[in-house]
């Protein structure tokens, strides 16, 4: 079983930038992202999120997002996804960074989730 991370943001540059930070501590974890609308405006796109799921080579995904409508589009993409995706309501950067660090160290998903709990803010 391999775990990957998916980052979803309203802003293309935020979605593309955060994986740079995560890769520093998680060189072996597949991290994909979806940012902005289909036209790269501010917003989120269910199609882009589904693509980020498909592009991620891991068996199971941990998804992190910035604001409200990103969550709704994530949930719709999860309903249509063909692999398990776990959605976390944590602060985006801190949550994803925590998960990346722990997954790289081979920590189990239940233990990762335990450490994500105090970072839940939404």
């Amino acid at each position, binding site marked *: 079983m391999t775990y990957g991370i998916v980052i979803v943001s309203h802003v293309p540059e935020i979605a593309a930038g955060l994986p740079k930070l995560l890769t520093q501590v998680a060189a072996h974890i597949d991290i994909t992202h979806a940012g902005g609308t289909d036209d790269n405006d501010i*917003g*989120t796109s269910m199609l882009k999120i589904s693509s980020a799921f498909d592009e991620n080579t891991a068996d199971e995904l941990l998804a992190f997002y910035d604001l*409200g409508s990103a969550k709704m*589009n994530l949930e*719709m993409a999860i309903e249509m996804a063909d692999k398990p995706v776990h959605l976390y309501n944590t602060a985006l950067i801190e949550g994803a960074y925590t998960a990346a660090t722990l997954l790289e160290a081979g920590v189990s998903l239940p233990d990762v989730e335990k450490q994500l709990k105090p970072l839940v803010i939404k």
Partner: protein
Amino acid sequence: MLTPEIARLWLNHFAALIDDNKAHLSDLDTPIGDADHGNNMARGMVALTEALQAKPDLDLAGVFKASAMALISKVGGASGPLYGTAFLEMAKTAKNSADLPTLLDAALAGVIKRGGAEVGDKTMVDAWTPLVKATHDGTLSQAVIDEAVASTEPLVAKKGRAAYLGERGIGHRDPGAESTGYLFKALLETEGTL
């Protein structure tokens, strides 16, 4: 009983009302949101009308499904998944029923499931809930619509971008409730729906 033809007229009229009022919707979204509701909805409704035009032979479920997919893929803000889910749930229900209030029940359940809002949270649910009930009771009118939409003004937002502002949003009308008002206004103004 709703037919695919009447459903098309209703949705196209909704699109026209959104287009006519997109500046107003974005204005409502400016003090308590991110100022994009009108433009997001207008972009989605253009995609919706184009999708329906491209497929003239859809059954009732197909009309709602094509509408849902257009909004889900083109809107970008919260209204895309919310209206998209509403129409998707209507599409599912339309396989077994062409009864408008029954379809709208499914739509409202979808909006609540997707957004997690309850009545009183200052969202489109505050408009949807009494207006769906009015279609059951046969009492839908412009006055009922205006009252449902205005009911969001004194509320403190619990969901969406306006929730960040807390009590500072009191007195402002929820833009999602306003666009929901247009959906029901379009029903009133489309012969054969009610």
